[in-house]
Each structure stands twice: as structure tokens, then as C-alpha cells.
């Protein structure tokens, strides 16, 4: 670059395109709409639907069923109504268990310390006279407490 050209560059650097002209040209450019995008899956409608679905999943009330903790208390059971409810539940549970469990009565007698019925049942089972077997816990109890009389 010669001296003359460099002088010219330095002098002309002060001249710059005015803002009004820039704005007018960019306004013209803005009047040409952007063409449709090649990727339909990033269209506004699709992404809006996806965002809505995610929002529904996140703030749906069913997400938080049972997530609310009861009003926090240090003692597990305090009020009389709770105690009553618990007692009634235990009664109900006992009845329900008696209705469903065939060994309930036997278990009750064993729990009170009476092993006579259990041992008689155990002997019958050993001799093979009854088909029904004792459940595992009762069988263990019987093995610990009962003697089996040897048959001749």
C-alpha cells in the first residue's frame, strides 16, 4: 500500500454509513418474510403442544395424591379419636383375620399356652390320619413342645 493510499484510508475512515440509511435498508430487508423452516418438528405449534403436555404432567394434581404429610406431631398417637380409630381397626382386623385364617383358633390356644389341641393335631398328622398339614409356624411350635408316641 502506497503512502497515498494509506493517507486516503486514514482520511476516509471517518466517513461511515449513516444510521438512517442503515435503518431504511434493514426495513426493506425485514419486509421479505423468512421462508418456512425445513424442520416441521420444531414448528411453533408442535413445540407449544409438547411444552403444554410436559406442564400438565408436572402440575397434574394426581402427581401429589398422598404426598401431603399429616399435620406433624412428635407423638405418634395423641388424640382420643385417633386412639378410638386405631382400636376399632384392630378389632376389625382381628375379625377379618378370624374369618380368613383356618388356623386362627388353634393359634389363639397356642398363644394362651395350651398346647393340647396342637399336639393332638400334630400326632394325627404324624400318623397320617389327617390330610391337612399344620402351617410352618405351628409345626415348629409343635416340634418344640409335643412328643409323638411311637406306634408299635
Amino acid at each position, binding site marked *: 500500500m502506497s503512502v497515498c493510499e494509506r493517507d*486516503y484510508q486514514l482520511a*476516509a475512515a471517518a466517513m461511515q454509513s449513516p444510521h438512517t*440509511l442503515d435503518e431504511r*435498508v434493514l426495513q426493506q430487508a425485514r419486509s421479505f418474510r423468512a421462508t418456512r423452516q425445513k424442520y416441521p418438528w420444531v414448528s411453533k405449534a408442535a413445540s407449544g403442544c409438547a411444552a403444554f403436555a410436559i406442564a400438565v404432567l408436572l402440575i397434574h394434581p394426581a402427581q401429589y395424591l398422598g404426598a401431603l404429610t399429616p399435620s406433624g406431631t412428635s407423638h405418634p398417637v395423641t388424640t382420643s379419636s385417633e386412639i378410638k380409630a386405631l382400636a376399632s381397626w384392630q378389632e376389625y382386623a382381628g375379625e377379618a383375620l378370624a374369618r380368613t385364617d383356618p388356623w386362627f383358633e388353634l393359634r389363639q390356644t397356642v398363644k394362651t399356652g395350651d398346647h393340647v389341641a396342637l399336639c393332638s393335631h400334630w400326632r394325627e398328622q404324624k400318623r397320617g390320619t389327617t390330610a391337612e398339614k399344620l402351617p410352618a409356624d405351628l409345626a415348629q411350635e409343635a416340634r418344640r413342645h409335643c412328643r409323638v408316641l411311637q406306634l408299635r
Partner: protein
Amino acid sequence: MTRNAFQNLSDEALLDYYHSTRNLRAFRQLYSRHKDSLYRYCAQMNFSAASTVLEQLWHSLLERPPELCGRLLRNWLFIRASQLLTQSATAADTEHNGEPGESPLAEAARMAPGESSALLAAMQQLPRIERNIVLLHMECRLPLATIADIERISLKKCRGLYQQGKDRLREILHGPERQPWQVEEVRL
């Protein structure tokens, strides 16, 4: 495509991209690359018509991609700008023919931003064809052969005019070339 990627593209690639997608950011990048030197050229050639010519030029580029035919976009821009400038100059001449008073060129020379620098003021004093050649070569960096094509003169004549324009500039700025004190030989 990110903003950084636009900076790495050449002018022609940017133009292609702009016309396939009409992405405003691509056009803005293209515009910011050339706006200053185009404005300098147009304002020094014809200050009053510069903004209309530039608007027209960019509008034609926006409407339809120019047929570059292997030329650089930069060259195309300056060639088109010089064409538009000569058109506007002839139109202004026909308009102002009947009116008495100063010609639009002199008016433009007075209004042009020559006050800021002596060099620019000197540039305004050059005749139109020399100014065009000097500006196209120094500001727009077009080769002299292209300038000769634009002006429709031979390369030799163009080179001569360029040299002449530079000499004239130097003369305006620094005065006439130094002459020897005594031209005639003293004979005793």
C-alpha cells in the same frame, strides 16, 4: 446456524444462504461488511444521490439474487453502484439543464464531507472520471482492468488516468512540483 458461523462464510455463500432461507441475520452480516466502503464511494462520487442509490442497490439485491457469473459479490456491488451513479448523474443533468445556476456536481462537492480532511476535499476537486477511477481503485480495491471495463476505456488509458488523478491530488495537496530556480542556462 449460529452467529459465529455467519462470520466464517464468504460473501457469496452468505448471499446464497440468505436467498434460500431469507434469514435476516445473514443479510445483516452481509450488509455490515460492505456498507461503509459503499457509502464512502457513493458519497464522494455524488453526495446528494448517495442514499437513494444505495437504497436502490440493496433493494435490487434483496429482491433477486444478482447473477454474479463467477465474479465476487464485492465487485458486483461496486460495478452496480457506479452504474446507478452514472444513471442518476445523467438524470440530474437532464433535469437541471434548463435551470441557471450552479450544477449539481458543484453543489455536491460543496456539501460532501470534505471539510473534515484536506485529502477528501482535494478528491472532490478532481474531474469525475479521474475521481471515479481513483476511488474505485483505492476505496473499493477493484483491479484497474475491471475499472477500465466499467468506464469503457482501454486499460492503458485507465492506468494513465489513474496516475494522472494521483498526480493531480498530490498537486492540490502539496502544491506544484518543485521547479528549478533558473530554467535557462546562464551563459557568460
